[in-house]
C-alpha cells in the first residue's frame, strides 16, 4: 500500500538521535501544503515509538512505519 504513494518530500534522518528526528520532521512539515506526504528514513530505533507519538500529538496522519534491516521508514501525511 505505502509503496504506491509518492512522497512530496524525502527526509534523511539517518544517524540522528532523539530529539532530532521529530524536530526535523516538525520543521519540514511546516512548509508543506495540507495533503502533502513526507517519507522519512532513520536509523534510531526510538523513532518506532516517537514518530507515531509525534503524529498523534500533532494531529498528523501516520500512513506507515516499518523496519527494513537497520533502517526505519515511515510515511506521514499532513492533514492540517
Amino acid at each position, binding site marked *: 500500500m505505502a509503496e504506491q504513494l509518492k512522497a512530496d518530500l524525502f527526509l534523511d534522518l539517518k*544517524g*540522528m*538521535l*532523539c*530529539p*532530532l528526528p*521529530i*524536530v526535523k*520532521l*516538525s*520543521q519540514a512539515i511546516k512548509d508543506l501544503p495540507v495533503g502533502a506526504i513526507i517519507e522519512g528514513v532513520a536509523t534510531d530505533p526510538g523513532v518506532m515509538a516517537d514518530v507515531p*507519538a*509525534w503524529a498523534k*500529538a*500533532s*494531529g498528523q496522519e501516520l500512513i506507515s512505519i516499518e523496519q527494513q534491516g537497520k533502517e526505519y521508514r515511515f510515511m506521514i501525511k499532513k492533514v492540517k
Partner: protein
Amino acid sequence: MEQNKLSMVVFSGDMDKLMAAFIIATGAAATGMEVTMFFTFWGLQAIKKSEKTGKSFFGKLLGFMLKDINGVGPSKMNFGGIGRWMFKKMMKAKNVAMLNQLRDMAIELGVKLVPCQMSMEVMELTQDKLIPQVSQPVGVAAFLEEARNSKITLFI
C-alpha cells in the same frame, strides 16, 4: 483554562539535567506545544553569556564559579571537568545534539526562555549578562499562572 502548554522550572545547572530539560522542551515544541522554561538558581547558567558577573565580593566570587552552557558539567562523575570532556566526546561520536545546539533548536522552535528575577538578584546577574533571546525576568506568580494553564509541568 488548560491549554496545550508545557511549563518547566529549570533549577539544575548540571549538563545532564539540562540536556533532559532541553530535549523535553524541543520535543514538546516539535509536537506543537507552547513551551516555557523558567530558569532559576543554577539553571541560570544555561542562559548566561560566558562573561564574568557579580558586583560585591561574594557576587564576584560566585561569578567566577558560574559557567555558561558550554562549561557546565554532569551531575555525577565530573572529576573537575574530565567528565564533561568525556561526555562531550561520547555524544559527538554518537551524533547526539550538544547542549548549546539543543538550546539553539529550542529558540528556533519558539520555546520561551524566562529568567527568575529573585535568583538573578541574589546571584548578581543582570539582564545584559544573559543571552539576548531570554525574555524579561519574572517572579513566582508569573510561573504559577503559566503552570496553572499547562497540561504538563516539570521541575528539573
